[in-house]
Every structure is written in C-alpha cells, then in structure tokens.
C-alpha cells in the first residue's frame, strides 16, 4: 500500500488522468492514484486473459484487498478494459464501491456542455455515496486553485527539459510517483523542494537523447536503465506526467464545473480521444523540441488505444522508434536487452527499430 494513507482521511482511488481531482477534494476526500503492483495473471479467472495488463493488475490488487484502506474508486470509461473493470469490481469486489464517470472522447463545444452535466452528476453521486452535505462552488474554486498551483509548478519541471536535458528523466518520473503518493499540500512542497534541490546535468555528456513515452508505467526501472547506459531521457511522456498536469483550469468562474469540463477535455490528450492527426503533430513537436535522437515507446500488452496509434507515431516521429510491449512489470531483462540494442543503434546513427 502506498505510504500516505493515514487512516484519518477518506480516500477515493482513481486510475486515469481524466478523473477531476478537484471534485473529489471539494467533497472533502483525498484522491489517491492507484498504481497496482504487476500481477496480471492473478485476475484471469475474473477478467479475460487477453485484457490490458494494467487493468488486470488493478483488479487483482483489489481482489486481494491490497487497497482495503480506500473508501471507493472512481473509474472512467478510459477504454473498454477500464469500463469492463468497473463492471467486475462492482460485482466481485463490493467492498470497494465504484463511482463511474463518463468522459466523452471528443472535445467540441457540445461535448464540453455534456461533460459539464456529467461532472455535476458525478459530484451528486459522490455526495450521495459518501453522505457528504454538498460540494460548494467556493470549495470547488478553492481546489481548482490548489490543483492549478501544482500544475504551474509541474510546468516549471517540464520546462527544465525543454530544449535540453537538464534533469534526469528518472528523477522526474520519481516525482510523478510522489504525486500519486502524497496529498496536494505535501506534493506542492515536494515539487518546490525538487525545483530547489535539483542537480542539473549537462546534456553534452549524453551519448544520445531519447523521448520516453507510453502507458502503464509503474516504476522508473527502465528509465534508469536507459540513463545508466549514458543516454539522456529528454521527456517522460506518460499519463502520470504532462497528460496529467498539462493545461490549467480557469479559476473563479461562475461555473466551475464547466471550467473543469473544458480543461479535462482540452488537456494534453491520451490515445482515447479522437483526433489522431492532432496527436501526431503534437508528438512530432515534442520530439523536435527536445532534439531527441530516438523514441522509446512502452505499451502494456493489449493496450489497444496506443497499439492502434503506434504505427502512425512511428512513421511520423522523424527519428528511430522502439516499441516495447510489456507485461506491465517493467522489470524485464528481455526489454532491457532490446533497449540496449536500440541505444547502441542510436549511437551508431541507425534507423527505425
């Protein structure tokens, strides 16, 4: 169990960057990002084996009671696997109530309007489920500001990497992990501390530079492996990073739910959203702006959304691109060996892997 569950607060787990933390916080609960330990096969009797290994590991953890201290879990229709996971948790892990959130896969004005109403329903579900007297606009605006403060600080962290790798990718990823373990006030202090104490590294020392992207990454082992090979990780682009912290919510608006709906649909998208063309452009810019020599894309087995996008991302990256499909555990000698071969190829100025 992640360390900060103190037994005093009421915790609401979540597993996707599309869940609006501000509403959970305004309800007087602590959002708690669940990064289950890899145990995909332990859930196979409940969820079909050919399902995303992250979703399976999450179910296995809940069935084992690993997260018995949380008061419930918010699951969004992030993907088919997560939607089905919600069905299964409701039935087979009834001690962990599920609060479902329907997030459109589009971001036009009608979708924002609909999502605004869905967020209001979500708030009502929370208040009903947890017998909360109500979520006031004042509280919501206060939590929006608190979350925005973290986002602004994280923007500074991301900026450290723009145009040159001045901090280690593994350090940034560990900061992401801290973000899942700490409440917002401690995490705000943590980022400030990080920004104060960070030891810049010289980009010229690196043999080459890679963008590290993907989904379902639960620890820094592979990033450290890359860095130990003398390669700089210029961006750590996962749903714990920019996709989670990018884009501010408009503050002090008359309709904070609408402000939230806009931000959560407009934030840096994950592959669940429609519009692959736009994502290709953003991805190319990311690779170009960090002057990366290559891309390492990590994808858990059966993560369909990313698997569909990978060929186009690879074709448009403009640099060699390695796909590391994995069992979500990351501690894998086979992957390390493939990454080593890729890095060696980059050093020699090679082509797509």
């Amino acid at each position, binding site marked *: 169990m992640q360390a900060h569950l103190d037994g005093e607060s009421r915790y609401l787990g979540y597993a996707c960057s599309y869940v609006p933390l501000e509403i959970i916080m305004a309800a007087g609960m602590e959002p708690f990002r669940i990064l289950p330990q890899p145990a995909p096969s332990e859930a196979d009797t409940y969820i079909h084996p050919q399902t995303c290994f992250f979703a399976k590991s999450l179910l296995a953890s809940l069935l084992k009671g690993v997260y018995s201290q949380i008061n419930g879990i918010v699951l969004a229709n992030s993907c088919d696997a997560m939607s089905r996971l919600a*069905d299964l948790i409701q039935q087979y892990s009834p001690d962990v109530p599920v609060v479902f959130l329907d997030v459109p896969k589009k971001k036009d004005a009608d979708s924002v309007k609909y999502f605004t109403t869905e967020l209001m329903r979500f708030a009502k579900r929370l208040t009903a489920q947890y017998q909360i007297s109500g979520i006031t606009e004042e509280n919501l605006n206060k939590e929006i500001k608190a979350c925005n403060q973290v986002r602004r600080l994280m923007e500074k962290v991301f900026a450290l990497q723009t145009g040159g790798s001045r901090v280690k990718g593994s350090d940034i990823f560990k900061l992401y992990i801290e973000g899942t373990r700490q409440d917002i006030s401690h995490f705000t202090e943590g980022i400030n501390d990080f920004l104060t104490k960070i030891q810049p590294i010289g980009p010229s020392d690196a043999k080459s530079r890679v963008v590290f992207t993907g989904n379902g990454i639960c620890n820094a082992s592979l990033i450290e492996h890359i860095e130990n090979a003398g390669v700089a990780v210029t961006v750590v682009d996962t749903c714990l990073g920019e996709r989670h912290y990018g884009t501010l919510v408009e503050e002090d608006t008359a309709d904070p739910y609408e402000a939230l709906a806009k931000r959560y649909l407009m934030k840096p998208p994950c*592959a669940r959203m429609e519009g692959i063309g736009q994502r290709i452009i953003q991805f190319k810019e990311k690779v170009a702006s960090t002057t990366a020599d290559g891309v390492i894309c990590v994808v858990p087995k059966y993560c369909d959304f990313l698997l569909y996008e990978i060929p186009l991302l690879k074709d448009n990256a403009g640099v060699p691109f390695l796909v590391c499909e994995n069992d979500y555990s990351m501690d894998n000698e086979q992957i390390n060996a493939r990454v080593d071969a890729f890095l060696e190829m980059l050093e020699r100025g090679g082509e797509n892997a």
Partner: protein
Amino acid sequence: MLKNILEFVEQQTTKTLQEKTNFRAAWYNEWFRLFLKAYEPDTKVAYTSSYAFPMEILAACDVIPFDFEVAGSIISSTDMAIPTMEEAESHGYSRDLCSFHRTDLGAVFKNDFPEPDLLITTSYYCDGKAKTNDILSHMLGKEAFLLYTPREINKDSISYVVKQLRQVASKIGEVTGQQFDEDRLKETVRQSNQSRTTHLKLLDVLKNRPFPWNGSDFIAYSINGNLFNGRPIREKLDNILLEELKARIASGKLRPERHRAYWFAWFPVYPSNLFETMRDNQISVALCENFQMYWDEIDENHPFEGLALKCLANPFIGPTSRRIEGLDFIREAFNIDCAILFATPACRHSKSAFRLIQDSLAARNIPFLMLDIDISDPRGYAPEQVKTRIEAFAEMLDNGHGV
C-alpha cells in the same frame, strides 16, 4: 479485389433470383450491389458502422453507406484474408489488434476500398472501431465523425446525442451538396418502424422448435442486415425471410435439435467447421443477442430525438449487465438450454467481463461455453479443437451437467 468479389457475387445472385425468390440470394444481392455503388464515379460515399450508427439518417441522403468492417468481413471470407491483414501488419499494426480492423487497414493500404467522402462511426460498441475510423480518416484525408453515445439515458445525454445527429446530418448535406431534408428522415424513420414490426414477427417465428434457420446466416444478418435500416428493402428482405421460415416449418423437414443456445456476440467470417459441428451435435443458435429488438418505435415527428433514444438503448452501451437483462424471458420464450459467447481475441468490450455473463447464466442453471476464436483471422483456427469443444459441450448438455 473486393470489387471483383462484389461483382461476382452480385452476378451469381442475380442469376439465382431470376430463377426463384430466395432470401439468401436477395440479401447478398442487395448488400453487394449497395457496396458496388460505392465504387461508381460521382457517388458520395460514407464509411460507417451500420450495426451501431442509426442508418435511417444515411438512408435519408443521397450517400452510399459503406460499412468498412462488413466490407472487411467479405475479404476475410476469401483467400485474401491473410494477405490483407499482413499488409496492415507490415505497416506496424499489431496482431493483438482486432483482425477486422487489420483487414480494413490492409484493404486501404492496398487501395481495395472505395474512396470515402466522410467517415462516420460511434463510440460504442468498441474502442477499436472508433480508432480505426480515426486512422482511416487520417490516411484518406477525409473528415471523420464520431457519434459519442453516453452510458446513461437522461435528458442531457439525449440532448447531446440529438445535437450530434443533427451535426452529422448537416455534414452529410455538405458532402452531397444538398441540404439535409428532415421530411425525408421522417420517411426513413417510418420505414424503420414498419421494419420493426416485421422484425418482431421474425422473432416470433424463430421461437419455433426445431429452429428453422441456420446459425451463421442468422448471426451475420443480425449484424449486416442493419445496413438497410430505414430503406424499404429491409422490410422486403425480412418478409422474404419470414415466408421462407414459415414454409420450412410447414414442410416439417427441419433438422433435428437437442439443444438451443443463446449466442453472444459474433462468429468467424472465414470458412470454419463451427456451425457444421454444432449442427452435427444438434445444437441450434436459437437466438443471437444482436437480433433482439432493444428499441421502441421511433417518434416519426421527432426523428432525431427518436433515433437518439434508439442509440442510447443499445445494450452494448454501458455496463455488461445490460447485455444480460431479460435472460429469464429469453430462456423461456426461446427454449434456451445453453449459451455460447464467441470471444474473438481483441473484442475487449464484449468478452473482458465474461465472468459476469458466465455467473449470471450459472445462477439460472444455464450451461455456458466461451469460444476463444478469432472473428476474421483464420491463422490459428484449429478445427479439431473446435470440434472437440463443441462435442464435449454437447455431451455435457446431454448428460444434464455443465453449469
């Protein structure tokens, strides 16, 4: 290649129909002729997902609906299945992705599909379909439209779907150069309601014991019959089928059956021994979930609202529990004594929560078989294994075991 298949089958079925009326020939003839039109110059073509998108809207426009998944299934029923999927795989599309979609992508890489003017799909049934629509749109440089259908039915979700349907109608109008005609939509909705009545009659006839049709055609028609929704031909085809089934029942020459299955999801579109083995073991597909009538009559005076409700009522939206609602009624009405889930590897939305379906059936003492067989990729299909599993299931049913 696809066009050649379409032409060949269209010619063959036309010949058959010149000799006598036959449902299968009429169905294939209409289906293949419709897809052939998509290749004609100056024709406006909309890629779509006929089993999900309300086809009444397309029927109200001068645009040819080309269901890219159904078209892919035609390729997958031939020797071109593997080369077409390999084309997509050679471009980096993983074999873990839906084989239907690999076929579609391969067909586009091979310039085998007609050129679309617009690509329309829905957020349900699966993520992969919407993603493929997005990718095809990017590859072909044509606009994509995703009908996002929320999980709950409430005034906000109805209003959201209505707005999207109006938006897509307007986009089709832009493509065809004609303003969308709402009166024409009322006509197609009226037509759809009429077909609904015939569909209910069909469901009634299908309750006959022994089952008067065959499993593979039943499941196939439950999916691609939707291509004709809102068009008079749908009602005509259903009526031909209805008369054929009645005649078969009246003849008394139906195949013997010992067991009647409720069928979840899809079927292998390539040649297989699945249904032959079921027939040999006297197991019928008495009802497939896609053929159920899940929607109420559409309000002809408010066609967009009515169609929005039809979309939202689809049991494939929302929790898995919606797919198993009404099991007691189905069991009784159709004399179901077993159930089969066709679990194609990439169909996460349909099969990931198989356990809920299994347990729900077990609670009713209905034996359940999950068949992990690919829908469209024949590589890995093991006929002997399928035969063994079906035979074992039949034996278990005969012995009264197996929940």
